[in-house]
């Protein structure tokens, strides 16, 4: 004799069915979302991985790839109109991104009086400034040159390799580091000579 199966499922069975239905609804929702946003998600995937020929952010142009690892750094020097100094920049250099470079600037006091100067600096183009790192420079510090004296000023710098990943700055192939010397004036000079008089004498005669 056959036994008739129960018409109403037991409570555990109903709970299992509910879980299955919920899971199917979640999968359905996820699939619908993926379909709805498939275009932007695919674009994002391609941009992150470079898959499908999409250009990655670091290389904005085909020509930029070899330039991205090297940059030319030029140097520019200026003196305030009231300074009898000849201020000479070093030759331009081609450096690898991240590589430290040492260059020497040179100044000569062609006047007949000692002059105390201080320099400001600028990096152009401005968008490259945040990637131009100076480890050692003579900016902001007072520099004394006696009549006829010449002095070399070392600058050590590197260009942050992150510049190649910045879409706004990755096209920079030439950076100019510019210095301008200003005359601190007589009052500052006299104060400096009072404070450093002994050191100046001990260094001997100027060149």
């Amino acid at each position: 004799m056959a036994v008739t199966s129960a018409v109403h499922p037991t409570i555990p069975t109903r709970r299992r069915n509910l879980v299955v239905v919920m899971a199917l609804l979640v999968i359905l929702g996820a699939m619908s979302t993926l379909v709805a946003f498939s275009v932007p998600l695919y674009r994002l995937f391609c941009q992150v991985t470079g898959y499908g020929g999409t250009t990655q952010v670091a290389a904005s142009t085909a020509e930029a790839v070899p330039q991205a690892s090297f940059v030319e750094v030029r140097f520019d020097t200026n003196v305030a109109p009231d300074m009898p100094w000849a201020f000479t920049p070093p030759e331009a250099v081609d450096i690898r991104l991240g590589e430290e470079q040492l260059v020497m600037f040179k100044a000569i006091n062609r006047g007949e009086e000692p002059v105390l100067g201080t320099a400001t600096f600028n990096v152009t183009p401005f968008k490259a400034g945040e990637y131009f790192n100076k480890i050692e420079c003579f900016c902001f510090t007072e520099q004394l040159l006696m009549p006829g004296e010449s002095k070399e000023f070392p600058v050590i710098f590197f260009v942050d390799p992150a510049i190649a990943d910045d879409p706004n700055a990755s096209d920079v192939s030439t950076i100019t580091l510019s210095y301008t010397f200003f005359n601190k004036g007589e009052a500052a000079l006299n104060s400096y000579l009072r404070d450093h008089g002994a050191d100046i004498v001990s260094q001997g005669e100027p060149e």
Partner: protein
Amino acid sequence: MQPLSALGIAALLLATSVSQVAAHSLEHLETEMLNQEAYFQPVGKDAPDFALENAEGQTVGLGDLKGTVLVLHFIYNSCPDVCPLHADRIAEIQAMINQTPMREQVRFLTVTTDPARDTPEVMSEFGSAHGLDRANWTFLTTRRDQPEDATRQLAESFGHQFMQTEDGYQAHGVVTHIIDRDGRWRANFHGLDFDPTNLVVFVNALVNDVHEPGSHDGLGFWDQLEAWF
């Protein structure tokens, strides 16, 4: 390269790399400036906001000037003594800054405290007479819909005190205010006896002050995703 020269350069690199962070930082310069410049006062807070009118009748606010270092001062044309001298000093500093690439990153703001009499025409003549270069100099006065004392109120929020004399003169201090690229009030240079090269050097440090490489246009993952949607 001679071995000794190579050793010397190596020693220089080693010695300097240790102190590279502090070597020319703004904080280091502020400390130096406090020792060197008696009239220097570091501030370090948001600059008082304003929305004033320039000589062309356009409204200029602090937000419009972000990205530029500002050298701001208050004067009025009929001032008999210090204001003309202050304008001369500002023009001297502007000439120094404008001979460098900083000319594109620094703006000089002259705010009149006597807007009733200092019309744009009057102040344009004042600027020319004192050698202020229009390339990066802006004269500011109250807008027509503002109370007459709006610029004096602004001056007070920059710490100035006014005393009106019987003959119509305004007695107030002589201070040059320096505001950084983010609209932060960074320093005051008091009076007229400060060394102008110190102000130029301080402005230069603010122009070159970098927060984080690439921060000017750093769109994150979610920003890009949001943009696409």
